[in-house]
């Protein structure tokens, strides 16, 4: 939690003649103690109009503050000791954890046997482990983690591969979910025919594909921040349409803020297989697992194909990509459409699993959450994105009941901040992306971590 800029420049050792207030160990300790005070204040009681000082008396002038100051001091001492033990250079404290993983990953590329055995081990674990969980965690695994893994995989194509920052991504999720509600007959307007959620999948994919192209067509000539703002606006338009759709030219289309209730579970009655998904989470989990594995294989091939390389080229240098014959707008649109349809697909599954959707499921917050997952896991890296989505959805559930509900986002924020300090490239970064980040630190590549190259024209 120390400010890394304090540690750059001169590094006074133990025998340094610098005055104590310029010694970096003391400076770090000071910052940490300040952070401790802030955390004490934030987690303490809040004042009110009659007793405005309650916030302070309950936190800073309460024995509780010693806990936070003590923790800050302990962290400071540990960091100092760690620095001393490693000599002068600042090292990444996560290195011992990461090094073996990196080593395995490096060997995996050259040794197919190792690669497939690692995949098989992960798959066996993913199949068997959820059986041992309580129904609560099985539900978390599907409703929270599984659906968001799908979302993050889709957004990874847009943000991680093509380098387009999409802040309205959840809109496609909403379109998928509302399409399901419509075709299962759970919206006030009656569909021409009612379908099973499985049969809605192709329609929802098509609808989100079209929505993605409609949004992308006019906006994809924008770059970076501008694109982000337009997509953010699009996300809000879709949500507000859903909220106000109960009086859409006089007819109730979306049922407004009350949303759609009673969306049926999917079922299969074909090819001699008869199976109905019910309220139980585990069958949904296996359905999602099959889909995620399928998407992982497909997206991995996509990334290492002509299309994936074209996306990388556009992300790195759009002008050079165009000069090399890559139709940039077409490829950006393609990335947008693939991401959107993955999101719509996730929307169908979510709607039919939970059975209830309302505009509150599609807030801007969730768009940002998916972007955070992609960055947290490692942009452009499939295992990273899956892990990022899983960790970020798992953490609030772990904290549930252990910390006051209003404090949960503090821990969430702290995790993200720590991550940005010690591992800005994400948990399991893609090789191309880490190279880009390194190059931009050296001033060679795009300074923007999303891959926009400054100074490019047209």
């Amino acid at each position, binding site marked *: 939690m120390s400010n890394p800029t304090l540690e750059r420049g001169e590094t006074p050792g133990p025998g340094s003649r610098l005055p104590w207030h310029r010694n970096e160990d003391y400076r770090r300790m000071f910052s940490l103690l300040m952070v401790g005070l802030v955390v004490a204040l934030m987690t303490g009681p809040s004042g009110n109009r009659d007793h405005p000082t309650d916030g302070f008396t309950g936190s800073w002038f309460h024995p509780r503050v010693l806990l936070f100051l003590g923790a800050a001091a302990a962290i400071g001492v540990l960091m100092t000791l760690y620095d001393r033990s490693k000599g002068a250079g600042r090292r990444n404290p996560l290195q011992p954890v990461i090094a073996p993983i990196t080593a395995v990953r490096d060997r995996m590329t050259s040794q197919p046997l190792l690669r497939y055995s690692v995949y098989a081990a992960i798959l066996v674990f993913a199949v068997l482990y959820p059986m041992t969980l309580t129904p609560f965690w099985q539900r978390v695994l599907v409703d929270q983690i599984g659906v968001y893994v799908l979302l993050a995989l889709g957004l990874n194509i847009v943000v991680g591969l093509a380098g387009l920052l999409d802040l309205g991504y959840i809109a496609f999720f909403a379109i998928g979910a509302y399409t399901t509600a419509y075709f299962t007959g759970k919206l006030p307007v009656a569909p021409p025919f009612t379908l099973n959620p499985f049969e809605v999948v192709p329609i929802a994919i098509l609808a989100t594909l079209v929505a993605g192209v409609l949004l992308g067509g006019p906006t994809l000539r924008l770059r970076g921040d501008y694109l982000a703002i337009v997509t953010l606006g699009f996300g809000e338009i879709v949500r507000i349409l859903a909220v106000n759709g109960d009086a859409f030219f006089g007819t109730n289309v979306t049922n407004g803020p009350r949303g759609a209730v009673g969306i049926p579970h999917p079922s299969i009655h074909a090819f001699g297989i008869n199976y109905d998904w019910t309220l139980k989470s585990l069958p949904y989990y296996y359905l999602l697992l099959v889909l995620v594995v399928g998407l992982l294989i497909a997206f991995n*091939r996509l990334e290492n194909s002509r299309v994936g*390389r074209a996306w990388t080229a556009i992300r790195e240098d759009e002008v050079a990509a165009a000069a090399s*014959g890559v139709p940039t707008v077409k490829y950006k649109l*393609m990335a947008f459409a693939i991401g959107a349809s993955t999101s719509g697909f996730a929307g169908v599954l979510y709607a039919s699993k939970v059975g209830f959707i309302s505009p509150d499921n599609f807030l801007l917050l969730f768009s940002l959450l998916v972007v955070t997952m992609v960055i947290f896991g490692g942009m452009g890296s499939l295992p990273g994105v899956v892990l990022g989505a899983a960790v970020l959805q798992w953490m609030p559930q772990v904290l549930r009941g252990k910390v006051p509900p209003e404090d949960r986002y503090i821990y969430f924020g702290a995790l993200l901040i720590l991550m940005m300090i010690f591992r800005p490239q994400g948990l399991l970064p893609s090789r191309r992306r880490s*190279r*880009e980040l390194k190059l931009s630190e050296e001033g060679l590549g795009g300074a923007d971590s999303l891959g926009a190259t400054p100074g490019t024209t047209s």
Partner: protein
Amino acid sequence: MSAQPVASTAATPNDLVLDVRDITLRFGGLTSLDKVSLTHTRGEVLSVIGPNGAGKTSLFNCLTGVYFPQEGEVRFYPEAGVERSVLGRKPYAVNRLGIARTFQNIRLFNALTALENVKIGIESRQKTGPIGAMLHMPWNRREERESDAEAFRLLEFVGLTKRANEVSSSLPYGDQRRLEIARALGTRPQLLLLDEPAAGTNPAEKRQLEVLIRAIAETGISVLLIEHDMKLVMSVATNVVVLNFGQVIASGTPKEIQRDPSVVEAYLGSGDEADSAAVPRKAAKKAPAKQPPATRTED
């Protein structure tokens, strides 16, 4: 200079690969190109020279769809008898026509390997779409193999076989220049536009480049070359066009250009202290030729 090709005679229209007619490019009140015309005969190396700010790179940008000149026409003949207009097409579409380019300041895909850089150029001519890539059908795999083979062939052609799997930004400067040429060649151009390929390279790299440009021209690809290094220009160019203040002030064979008084004046100015390195005639005898100090300020 003994290897000087025989000066080409007046080209018949059928031999042309590029026909630029009276293009005028203005940025507000500034006229960057003023009625520039030039013709490029198929298979030859045409060099565009001129002092800094003369409009050479602007001309390149007009030819590749980056800028749209207000007046004039650019005709491109992918093969004899087929005429295509270049103006009004987007950069990737110009590339599709068969005009590939390199950049004055190297623009490689820095985080990709040398091989991947070349493959991006090659694959702009392939068909595999996203669905095909995901399904990985046999014909998609065949395209992938073709792309690999072609990329290795091109890397060998420019002499970078050993560096195929190195990250492009870690390559030495001269290798990056040649990699950019390989990427451009990957798009199977009829006309290759090289924007100062020798800038910033050392004498050994310049000699390699000279050999490379000749080899490219021998494969039948026409080369349009912007270059400050007069030794290189005089040794590889079949014809030379001189630009100054956005106008063509001279054109002809390298020998004619060296003797042209207006060219000498354009480079020296009248009465200026001579920067002898910039004079084509003298530079041709001196090796390596140095660029005028202000060269790098041009963009």
